[in-house]
Structure formats: C-alpha cells, structure tokens
C-alpha cells in the first residue's frame, strides 16, 4: 500500500514544482501595479471636481525607480503601488514627469516595498517585427501574452502635438494600453500607450532609454520639434518649379507657424534636402540606420532635445544652403488653443453669472470624442490659427448661470471675448483686472466680430453682490480659479 502513495506524492511534487516555475517569470519581480486617484474635470462646469480611479503598470528600472507612461498621472490626488500582483499597496510619488515625452519616474519611500524587486533592462534597439511578449498582473496572476509587432511608425504622441517614434502591434488581448511592458528576450522593448480595436501602440524603449539617460545626466531639456509644415514632392514638376537641379529629392516647406522665440530662418518653398546628415526623399523619409525608412519628424526627437542645433541642407532660389536648425521646445502655452494643460484645475472666472474660460483643446473635448466635428465651427476654426503678439490665446464666455442680474443674456454660450471695458482679453487672468475699470458704472463686454452677439452691458455696482449670490445658489466654492 505504501508504494502507490509514494508515487502519488512524487506526482504531486512534480506538479507543484511546475506551478512554482511558471509563477517565477523573471518579469514578475520588475512589473508593479499602479492605482491612481485623480481629479476629473468637466469643462462645462469647471468648478465641479470629480475623482476617478485608474489602474496601470510600471516597470522597475533603477534603484528605487519605476518608469511608467505619463498618461493618467496628471491631476492625481493619490498614487499607490503594489508588487507581486496582490497584497499591500504602498503610497508612491512622482519624481519626474514629462507629458510631451509621455514618461514619468516614480518612487516609493517605504523601503519594504523594494524588497524582492529587480530593475529590468531597457533595450537600446528595438525590433521592428516579430513576436514580442506583453507582461502584466491580471487578477493576482502574472500574465505573459504574445503580440505581433507590425512596424515602427512616427506619429503624434498621446499627450502632445510632437511627432515621435511608436511601435505598432497586433493584439487580440482586451484592455491593453495601460503602460504594460513589452519584452523580447531579457529586455523591455516598450511600454504600451493605447489600443484601438486590435491595434496597439507603444513607446519604444530606445526612446525611453535615451530620455531617462539624459534626464539622469541633467542634459534633458524637454522635447524639441520641427516648427514647420512640409509637403511631399512626388509631383516632380513641383521640384522643377523650384529650380532644383540634380536628382529629384527632398520635400517642400509649405508653412512656418508664427512662434515667439523661433529664430530659425526656414522659408516657404525651401526644399529640405538633408537633416542631421540624413538625406530626405520625396515622400519625406530618411534612411534610419537602425529602422530603415522613417518620417523626417523623427529626426527632431532621435537623440535630440529642445535647443539642440541640427544641421540642415536646403535648396533655396536655385542653390544649396547649409543651416543649423534650433529645435524649439514643445510647450502647450505656445499655441493659440493649447492642446493640453496638465496638473492644473480648469481655469474660469465667474462674474455676475457669466462664466469665462480659456479656449483650450480639453475644453473643446467636452463635445465628445468627435469634438472636431461637433464643437462649433467658429471655435474649431481657431485651432488652426497661429497665436499673435496681441492675441496669444483666447477666452470664451462659456455659459451664463441665470440670475436676475444677467437677465437677457442667459442664452449666450461659447462666444469669444474681444474686450472688457476697452481692454483686450487674451488670457483668463486679465478679466478681473479689466472688471475693475468700469466706465460710468457699467461693464462693457465686447465679443469678436462674427460671434453671435457683439456686446453686452453689466451693472458695475451690483456685480460683486450678484457674484456672491450666484456662487451660493449654484454651489461654486470660488468665483474664480486662475492659475499663475
């Protein structure tokens, strides 16, 4: 009788050792879960704050250092981390974040958290095809799934207007895009950022590695970008028109948006022949030594940061010309309608029930995911306009909280402000000062030409009392939120 029992024990032993082996994926000691509580704002009611909770992943990359994507970290109120896929959560904090690069470094002060965790290695060169593994914690288990890497692609970053390199993968897995690590062999090759149907995008480790290295060495100056638009020159007559001699090559600069501080001397109709030593072909690609044909925008972020000077060869007026292009620093405040503003609550000024707000892309996104179709065309039109010195940004009368004080104006919404009491309004922080300059007891609020109304008048003497009353009635804790 003892013999069969012994066999059974041996059998059980084998099974349990196989389970143990599977649980010991080396990545399990490097991948952690993040739990983020953050403010979620409704720009149609900018004073209302809701809290939302999200979960994503991070990868240990150094001593007490975790890297993750910057997405979902903005406006956070509490950040916690968990190792091993279960058990205790530890409070964490952000030590560095860059929304244009979409990267953040986190740490946990409790030494216990770091016990058993091991830094992962970030690949300096990523593959451009083949099968890779996605690793993450899922319901307390460590999950390793295969994905097919399609291609490398230069496209706009998730949180910015800057173009940069991305990995594109086929994925049959649900719910990918929360900064899960992609691995190949013993290296991390990227962090996922999004999923749309069965396509998944990720930031390549080569990029992460170079940003983190520059950041640790103190040489990271933020993301730079090319401040010009160009067109392909596949129609050879366009190059003939510009008197290009020799082989047909290069792309044509079509527009250089006005940008304060940009002293680059590119002109419309310049042909870009080479950038940073790489020849540009007629579709706008260069031959990347690591990844083959890549769109020229990648040359602004490929081991370069804001302020770097990049040599360019251009064709202008029948001759080649060498110049150094200084990469402007990506900054949301340089846009007439800023793409984003992170880690600040939405700004507004409520005066006598009139809600004034800066016109920003997050505001326009209140119209939903297809905001570019659904928001008023008048407002969308400004998105493509460059800022000017006298009009760097725009403020809208967003809505009116009805009260006897503002009777007659309740239906005005989404109207771009021109002047208040004769003073030009471009920034939300100019409103309160302008309202201190009433003329003969009235506040005159003028709107841009072509808006649904040109001017309204408020009683200056009763403004303060009306604002107080409306705050109470509509539950506003503050009459204005204006960031420095």
């Amino acid at each position, binding site marked *: 009788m003892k013999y069969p029992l012994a066999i059974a024990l041996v059998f059980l032993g084998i099974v349990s050792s196989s389970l143990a082996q599977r649980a010991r994926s080396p990545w399990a000691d490097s991948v952690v879960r993040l739990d983020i509580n953050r403010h979620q704002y409704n720009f149609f009611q900018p004073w209302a704050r809701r809290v939302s909770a999200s979960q994503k992943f991070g990868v240990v990359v150094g001593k007490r250092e975790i890297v993750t994507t910057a997405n979902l970290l903005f406006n956070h109120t509490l950040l916690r981390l968990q190792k091993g896929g279960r058990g205790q959560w530890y409070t964490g904090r952000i030590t560095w974040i860059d929304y244009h690069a979409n990267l953040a470094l986190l740490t946990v002060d409790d030494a216990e958290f770091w016990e058993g965790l091991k830094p992962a290695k970030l690949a300096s060169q990523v593959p451009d095809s083949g099968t890779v593994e996605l690793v993450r914690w899922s319901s307390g288990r460590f999950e390793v799934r295969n994905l097919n890497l399609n291609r490398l692609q230069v496209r706009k970053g998730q949180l910015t207007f800057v173009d940069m390199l991305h990995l594109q993968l086929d994925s049959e897995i649900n719910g990918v895009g929360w900064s899960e690590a992609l691995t190949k062999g013993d290296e991390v090759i990227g962090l996922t950022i999004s999923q749309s149907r069965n396509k998944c995008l990720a930031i390549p480790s080569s990029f992460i590695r170079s940003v983190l290295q520059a950041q640790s060495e103190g040489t990271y100056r933020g993301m730079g970008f090319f401040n010009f638009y160009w067109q392909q020159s596949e129609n050879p007559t366009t190059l003939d028109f510009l008197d290009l001699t020799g082989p047909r090559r290069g792309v044509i600069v079509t527009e250089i948006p006005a940008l304060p501080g940009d002293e680059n001397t590119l002109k419309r109709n310049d042909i870009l022949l080479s950038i940073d030593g790489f020849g540009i072909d007629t579709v706008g690609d260069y031959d990347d030594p690591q990844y083959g044909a890549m769109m020229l925008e990648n040359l602004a972020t490929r081991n370069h940061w804001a302020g770097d000077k990049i040599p360019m060869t251009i064709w202008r007026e029948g001759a080649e010309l060498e110049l150094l292009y200084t990469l402007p620093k990506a900054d949301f405040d340089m846009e007439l309608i800023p793409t984003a503003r992170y880690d600040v609550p939405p700004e507004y000024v409520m005066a006598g029930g009139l809600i004034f707000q800066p016109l920003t892309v997050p505001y326009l996104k209140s119209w939903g995911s297809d905001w570019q179709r659904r928001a008023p065309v008048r407002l969308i039109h400004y998105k493509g306009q460059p800022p000017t010195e006298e009009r760097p940004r725009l403020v809208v009368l967003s809505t009116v909280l009805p009260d006897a004080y503002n009777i*007659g104006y309740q239906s005005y919404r989404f109207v771009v402000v021109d002047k208040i009491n004769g003073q030009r309004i471009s920034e939300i922080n100019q409103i309160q000062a302008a309202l201190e300059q009433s003329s003969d007891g*009235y506040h005159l609020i003028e709107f*841009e030409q072509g808006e649904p*109304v040109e001017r*309204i008048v408020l*009683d200056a003497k009763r403004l303060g009392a009306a604002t107080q009353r409306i705050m109470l009635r509509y539950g506003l804790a503050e009459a204005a939120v204006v960031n420095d």
Partner: protein
Amino acid sequence: MKKLCLCFLLLSNHIQALPPEASVIQIVVFTQEPDWDEPWNSRPVSRSTGTGFVIEGNRIMTNAHVVTWAKQILVRRYQDSQPFQARVSHIGHDCDLAILEVDAPGFFDELPPLPLGTLPSVRSTVVTYGYPAGGEQISYTSGVVSRIELQSYTHPGNRRLLAVQTDAAINPGNSGGPVIQDGKVVGVSFQGIPGLENTGFFIPPPVFDHFLKDVEDGDYDGFPQAGVRMAPLQNPAERAYLKVPSQFEGARIDTLFSDSAKEHLKKDDVLLKVGPFPVARDGTILYEKNQLHAGLAFTLAQNGETVPVLLWRDGEEVMLNLPVWVNREDAAAGNSYHLPRYYVYAGMVFTPLTKDYLTTFGQNWSSVADTGILYELYYRKKSDPDNARPEPIMLAATLAHPVNANMRVRGRVMVDQINGKKIDRLEDAIDALENATTPFLNLRFIGSYGFETLHAEDAATANQSILNTYGVVNDRRL
C-alpha cells in the same frame, strides 16, 4: 326647351357645387439635377409627384421644390386621366412657391379658381387636399392649427418665414396642395419634420399673397430682410446704459449686415416699432395674436420698399424709413438652384464653393467637409469680411491625364492662388490659367494642402484632348 334648360341648370348647379378637389391638380414631374462634382453632366432623370391648385388667372400654384430642376411637368385634373404639359411661369425658391401655366386650350375650363383666405387662427380646423404617396386618388386629411411661427424653410435651407404647424398629416406628394378652411385656401402644404409625429407645415396667406404680389410685375424678387441682427434688450443695466425710458419696450440692434442697414441704422439703436408693430424687449412683435420675431415685419414689405421704423437713438426717438432689400449674398450657403458655374482646364475642374457642391460629399457632408471650408462658406463673411472672397473657388476634381497624373492634391480643396494671383471668383482662375506667361502653372490651396504645379505648355497642349476623353462638351459654364 324645358328639358334643355333643366339640363343646363343641373350642369350649372354642378359647377356651383363643385367641391374644392375639382381645382386640385396632380403634378407629375421628371427632374434632372445637375451634378456638382462633374458640373457638365446631369444626374439620371427621376420621377416625382406633387400637388397644385388653380388660382385666379388660369394659373396653378404649387411648391417650388415640386418643380425644381424639372425637365417635364405633367398636370392631371381631378378624375381625369389625361395628362397636360405645364411650365413654370414664376418660381420663388426662398418661399418655396411656384406658379405653373398650361398652354393647352380649355384646360382651365370648368376649373374654378380657389378663393384665397387669410391666416387661420390657432386651434381652428383645416383640411388638406393632395395626392400623397400611397395611392393615386386624391386624399384628404384634417387637423387643427397647432401653432404659427417663423420656421426654417427646408427648400432654400437658409430662410425663416412664417409657417403654420398642423396635426393634419402632410406627406410626400402633398407638397403644393391647398389647405382649406371655410372653402378658402389658408395654406400650401410644404414640409414635415422627420421623426416628429402629427406635425405638418403649410405656407400661410401672408407668404403666398406676398409672392403673388411680387410677381405682378412679371419678375420675382423675393422676401427682403432688415439686414441686422437684433439682441434682446431685457437687462436693466443695458437699458440704463442706452438711457431707454422705463415705459418703452424695444430690442437692441447688435450687428449691421446689409448696406442699407449700415447706411440708415447704427449699432445700439433700439428698435421700438417696425411698421405698425411695437417691438417687445425680447425682439418680438404681436402679429395676428401670435408673438413672433420682429424680423417678420420686414419680410412683409416688397423688395426695395421702405419700412417705417421708430428708434431710440442717443437718448431720443427717431423715425425713419428703412429701405429693405432681398439678401442675395448668402445664396451660396443655401440651395441656389442655378446650374453650377464651372471651368475645366488641363483636367482640373473648378467650381464655386456652395452648399450644393458640398452635398456631393454625401449625406453627412457637414461632417466630411474640412472645417476650414465650412468656415469659408458660412462664417468668413461675418467674422472676417475684409478677407472674405466674393466667390471661393474649389478644385473639385482632376480628370486624370499624364499631364496632371503626378498631382497629389486632386480635389475637394479650395484654391488660394494661381501663379501668385488671389482667386476671388471663377473668372480669376480662368484668367490666371489661360493667360499664364510662366513655364509653370502653380496652384496654391487653402489650409494644409500646400501647392501643385503643372507645365504650362503641356497643360495647354493636353487641354482639348482631356475634354474629349472625358466627354466635356463645354469647358465652362459662367
């Protein structure tokens, strides 16, 4: 003799007793719409039906949309199988009304004109007569007048005129039919709102009377407008700022659009009265017991007439006569019902930017069209009049040929310049292309589309052969 007289009397009685349907006409129309993508072509012929009714002067009144783009109009009398050919004598697209005439002698014999009535009151009962879809016989529906308001007229697309809402069913085919009350026409059925049940709309007497008076001189002009935007003047601070005495009502003139308004009116004039109608603080007037937008009062005048207005200006009352004119500036933003202007050169098809053109982008054209183009069509003239072009020109398409085959931008873009010349209207494009003296034709587009270039000589050489290949008989319609 006696027998004959009796017969005559019977016949005469029969005419006298003819119900309104005897004068209700079924209209069968064969239409052919132009093709704005390939403006030298037309779309396939299609058949549709509508209704009309006989009015004084041997004329048939119907809706403009019933006979728009008609190639052949056939009319059929009540319980008469013979069709007669009709033609449009006047058409008013802004008010969606048209008058047809029939040349066949005797057509109107025994068809008494229907008498025209006045604006029916709310809650009164009306009966519609027409030939709606679902059968061949005349159909009647009855309902009450639900409300009377300024409504957007779907046919022009950018006009609001008086309309009456009823719960009597008004369906396709009813269009142009009379709405009868006490034996008189009190409306012309014209539109419904998809998805809204028990609502049909008809054009009331003030609108069709205006139309009939307008065409008395042989030409149709349309409904004039004040050329201003009014804003409510309800806020006590704003009233005090404009020093309007408390016993006065009135609305504020916020924006001046038309030349006439700019000449005679000022911003911040307070409109106290238009014609006989006092204007309330919310910008409405009381018209036939209905509180309606004061803009209505200007449309009651004929084109070029003056409307007396009482204003409060700079602290005193001012009375003046405001000449009012039909707005023709916004024709491109509505449905203009003119054959599209176009010009084809070296395979490039140029046509003005109009709403009709944009509808070729598909049913969801307003979502598909570039917002920059929508801005150009609908907003630029108001928000940036100095840079607005009289007639923005689109490169609609490019008919492929080796001479243009390398062009990357091939259509659905607005032309900014050709050979450095700003393109304000179609004639500018023709002039720039036909009189080019440079070896290249350079076309620059609006937005992020950059430019395209062709060899001028090659383009000129290939031009005729491209027209032949694609069957473009006329290279232009101006």
